[in-house]
């Protein structure tokens, strides 16, 4: 059964929805950074590979009260991941160095049980052999291995950047387990033109995310299920926060949060 795992470092993300314009730069940056192959038929969104997907939210009210918001959804790197406990071959695990949920493509048998378990749809399957038309293969990120057909893949919080940051810290004589704020950030964080995404160690008071995650406007997706996500969202709009979880009609937003 799934259980909580607490680590000294907990890499997390805080996404300010009120700053997000839905431009999709984070999605593009993620695809380029992590060697996601272009889809042959990108009109089929249920087979398009996007480790990070931007969802469009509305308050369901007619004009002139109608409002929209955009919610980028990477892997939540759950504290209690529904996917890790179900994988029959330990192809995915909660890593001790920062609590990132890893995925090992050469270990994966492609049963897709982890995909069935994930309520965030953060996992993707390689339905065909990946193809990079023309010279696209020449611009692949050398630090990220390309995945083969028949395996599941997901957002890794650009784990290779974490390793690079650790190497740089060692080279500069610093503790690789005590990175400074900004030493390690994900490609989507770097690409966001509005600075809507903040990345860092949620456990480290010196990191900005530590404070942001404690904001009264912070919420996490589907907290009631008890997955304990490491991705937080911020919004001053109550209806946006309410869209983050399922509520009965008589329940107030933010009620019934559960830690597993």
């Amino acid at each position: 059964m799934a259980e909580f795992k607490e680590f000294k470092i907990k890499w997390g993300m805080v996404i300010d929805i009120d700053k997000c314009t839905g431009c999709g730069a984070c999605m593009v940056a993620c695809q380029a950074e992590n060697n996601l192959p272009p889809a042959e038929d990108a009109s089929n969104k249920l087979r398009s590979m996007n480790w990070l997907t931007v969802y469009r939210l509305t308050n369901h009210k007619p004009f002139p009260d109608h409002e929209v918001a955009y919610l980028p959804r990477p892997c939540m790197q759950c504290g209690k991941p529904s996917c890790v406990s179900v994988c029959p071959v330990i192809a995915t695990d909660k890593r001790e160095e920062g609590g990132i949920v890893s995925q090992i493509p050469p270990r994966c048998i492609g049963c897709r049980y982890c995909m069935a378990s994930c309520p965030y749809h953060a996992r993707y399957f390689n339905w065909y052999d990946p193809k990079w038309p023309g010279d696209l293969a020449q611009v692949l990120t050398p630090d990220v291995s390309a995945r083969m057909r028949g395996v599941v893949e997901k957002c890794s919080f650009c784990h290779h950047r974490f390793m690079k940051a650790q190497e740089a810290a060692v080279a500069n004589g610093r503790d690789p387990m005590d990175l400074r704020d900004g030493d390690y950030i994900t490609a989507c964080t770097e690409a966001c033109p509005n600075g809507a995404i903040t990345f860092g160690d949620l456990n480290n008071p010196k990191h900005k995310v530590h404070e942001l995650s404690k904001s009264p406007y912070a919420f996490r997706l589907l907290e009631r299920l008890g997955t304990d996500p490491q991705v937080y969202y911020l919004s001053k709009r109550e209806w946006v926060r309410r869209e983050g979880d399922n509520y009965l009609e008589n329940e107030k937003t933010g009620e019934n949060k559960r830690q597993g």
Partner: protein
Amino acid sequence: MDYSKPFDAGLFPEGCERCSLTKFLAWMSFLGVIFLWGLYAAIRVLGFGLGETGMDDYFGFGLWITFDLAVIALGAGAFFTGALRYILNIDELKNIVNLAAVIGFLCYTGAMLILVLDIGQPIRCWFGYWYPNVHSMLTEVIFCITCYCVVLILEYVPLVLENRKLMQIRFVRILAHNFHVYMPIFAGIGAFLSTFHQGSLGGMYGVLFGRPYLFREGFFIWPWTFFLFVLSAVASGPMFTVLVCTAMEKLSGRKLVSWDVKQLMGRIAGTMLIVYTFFKCLDSWYWAADTLLAQGLTFDDMFYGYIYGKWLFWAEHLLLIVPMFVLMVKKLRENPMIFYSMMILVCASITLNRYLLTVQGLAMPVMPFDVWHTYAPNWVEWACCALVFAYATMVLSVTYRYTPIFPQEAELNKK
């Protein structure tokens, strides 16, 4: 040589008649065409990838998993009838236990075949043994299903050895005898393995706490679906065995198993059906009235339009409740038409249950801003299921033609 008998009459079981070889080959050719169609689809999947199917990232499970779960439940007649015959010594069941074992063998090998296609990296199928995750219900399924498949092969082999010509070989005769001596051990191991993997298949869904449609509380590490799957399998398995037997009787035009034995199977399965229906209804009520509400959802949130409508939920339950009450009335269950019809309804309910857990469970959007998507299997998925159907029917046809799987057949068809 007696030219009035089929060319291969020397291989038939003692005292049993069979159709002409030409007729038999025509039947096999018909099945062979279906088999080849399925084989073409399977080769496409293995050659090009699972993109050939109708599945996608929202519906990682589809027709194939539904098919697997259904045939594994319906094939449960093998372990349950075997356990009743060899462990509890219900002697009358010897007349149908061979067929139950053959059906179990075919259902499980068929399911394994589909699983080979369904996993993205079939060449890594041994990873389940090499890198097992002891926390995963699927690991238990992989272990038990493969082990039980071996047990079913061991139960099937002695039936093949019973062939009249093969039995003339001394070694085969002794081997077959020894297999029969140790059959209670196989039956015991089979009962243990099968109970666990039937349960684990249900547990696979119940543990998914991120999927409100599927998540169930339970006892210790086992969600309620674990126990429901075991009960549903022992209720529907013997019924499916009786239905296959009856279908074989209709096709061959011969009596194969006496009505008394079928009624006994019906009474056993019917008793299990009462237990299953009671707990299934209790589970559904608790899920709707408590589990869902704790997740901020209501019963209505679980359904969408016609394709995932409430009618499916009620149909699943009614297809259990109606047969349960009908089969309780002696006068009604002694009418063959009603008896078989009710069994078909129960098997349909179990199949529907597997479909709803597999497809509707994934269709239901959990994030409030997500939307319902629908899934329809494409021809490749249907063809691969047809491949298994054709394979199973061909093997069953050959087994029936050349081996004495029905001890009562000669007696029941005496002219």
